[in-house]
């Protein structure tokens, strides 16, 4: 039964969703909506599982005095502090805006988000500019026909995307870029998408029909 019930549930859910997709029958739509709601609940529960696992792994490393222990402690403290602040503000545990009324018109949660989370994420992403420049110098080589084509395409895209590239090539770079994107890129993308979709369709059917059982660790 440990195998049969999950397979039966998978088959039923899969067939219901396919039925809803191809029919206008209201009960099929209602069943589909219900299943999607369940899926959203599972996703939300997965957050809790994720957090639990993160705590477990972090505590293990802290107990073993791993090199990253300090970071793990910071991670746990910040995670619980932010969670607490968020819940306290949401449910007004300390009254509306009394203890947690932040600087200016911001709450503490908003302040942490705007003044810490946003700049930190933006900084991480900005570092790409430096690493791409370094990688371009050290690794981007025209060693073969394929890599030469890749290099040329990359250069055209970089020139065609910016006003200076358009200016110094007399308007040619954006036209080359359009040619690359509309013909070569779009054709390649479509071929990949169609191939991948057929693969997904086949895998989906195998799961729905109970043939593919890797999700049961078989």
């Amino acid at each position, binding site marked *: 039964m440990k195998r049969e019930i999950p397979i039966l549930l998978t088959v039923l859910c899969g067939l219901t969703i396919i039925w809803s997709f191809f029919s206008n029958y209201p009960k099929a739509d209602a069943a589909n909506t219900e299943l999607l709601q369940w899926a959203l609940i599972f996703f939300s529960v997965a957050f809790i599982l994720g957090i639990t696992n993160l705590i477990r792994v972090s505590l293990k490393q802290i107990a073993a005095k791993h090199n990253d222990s300090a970071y793990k402690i910071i991670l746990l403290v910040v995670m619980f502090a932010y969670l607490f602040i968020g819940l306290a503000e949401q449910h007004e545990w300390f009254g509306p805006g009394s203890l947690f009324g932040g600087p200016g018109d911001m709450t503490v949660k908003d302040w942490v988000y705007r003044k810490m*989370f946003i700049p930190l994420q933006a900084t991480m992403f900005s570092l790409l500019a430096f690493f791409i420049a370094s990688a371009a110098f050290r690794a981007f080589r025209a060693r073969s026909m394929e890599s030469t084509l890749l290099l040329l395409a990359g250069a055209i895209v970089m020139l065609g995307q910016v006003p200076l590239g358009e200016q110094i090539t007399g308007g040619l770079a954006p036209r080359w870029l359009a040619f690359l994107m509309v013909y070569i890129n779009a054709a390649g993308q479509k071929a990949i998408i169609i191939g991948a979709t057929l693969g997904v369709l086949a895998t989906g059917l195998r799961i729905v029909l109970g043939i593919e059982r890797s999700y049961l660790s078989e």
Partner: protein
Amino acid sequence: MAAIHDFDRRWIFLAMGVLVTTLYTLGSEKALTNSEYVDSYYATIEALPEGSVVMLSADFDPASAAELLPAYTATIHHLLKRNLKVVNVATWPPAPPYTREEFYRIAPMYGAEYGTDWTAMGFLPGDDVAMGNIGQSLRSAYPKDDVDGTEYDNLPLMAGLGDNMEGVDLLITMSAGYPGILEWIAQVGGRYETPILAATTAVQTPDLFAFYPNQCVGFLGAATGATRYLQLIDELTDGAVEEVKLENQKRMMVQSWAHMLIILLIVVGNLIYFFGAKGKQGAKA
């Protein structure tokens, strides 16, 4: 080859840092030429009758805000200026604060009121499953709003919408990756035939050429697309986006020179590689 690997890459970091900082401090703005995809984005919004409902999905985070926030801001200005109703949703957790902040700032300029002209429904977990749920039944996906927990049926704008995207005339996504425009096309555009527009990050833009103009009616590709769009709506919004437009035009010039530096580094790196290889062959002979 050893010369390349021995070269201290901190010099490259320094060159990029000095270039970007100097140009951003001293640099000037430059207008961009038009693009078919941006024109189509603009024209699709212009073609909607007043009072039409647009679902605006914030599918990005602060890491991609430099590219997508100007497009998001410009789109809000355009939609509200045209008296279109906006339903905000989000499939990325860090996105809703942007939604609230931008709407609280921009909506009063056009006299748009919360609940009747715009709503903020917030983040929904579940990626493409969440998108499927939004398409199938907005009411079941969002029983309450994200501002103060107002019930769905107490929001006049939402009460007029039905299941299967009924009443939604256009979907716009600010897409930074997964889930984003490709998932909206699969889950909603294809199924309910809702027209979709997108603003995307540079890395995601090439994906869209395969879907334009059928599944994705128009798009703003990266900061370039956003800048072109800001130029288009500047006059329409009576200069309300002038500051963002000039800032983006300046950024485009900085980006131009950063691209030139990268191309120069590729050329120099290859020259060293080839001359180094030839030198070795000569020494062997």
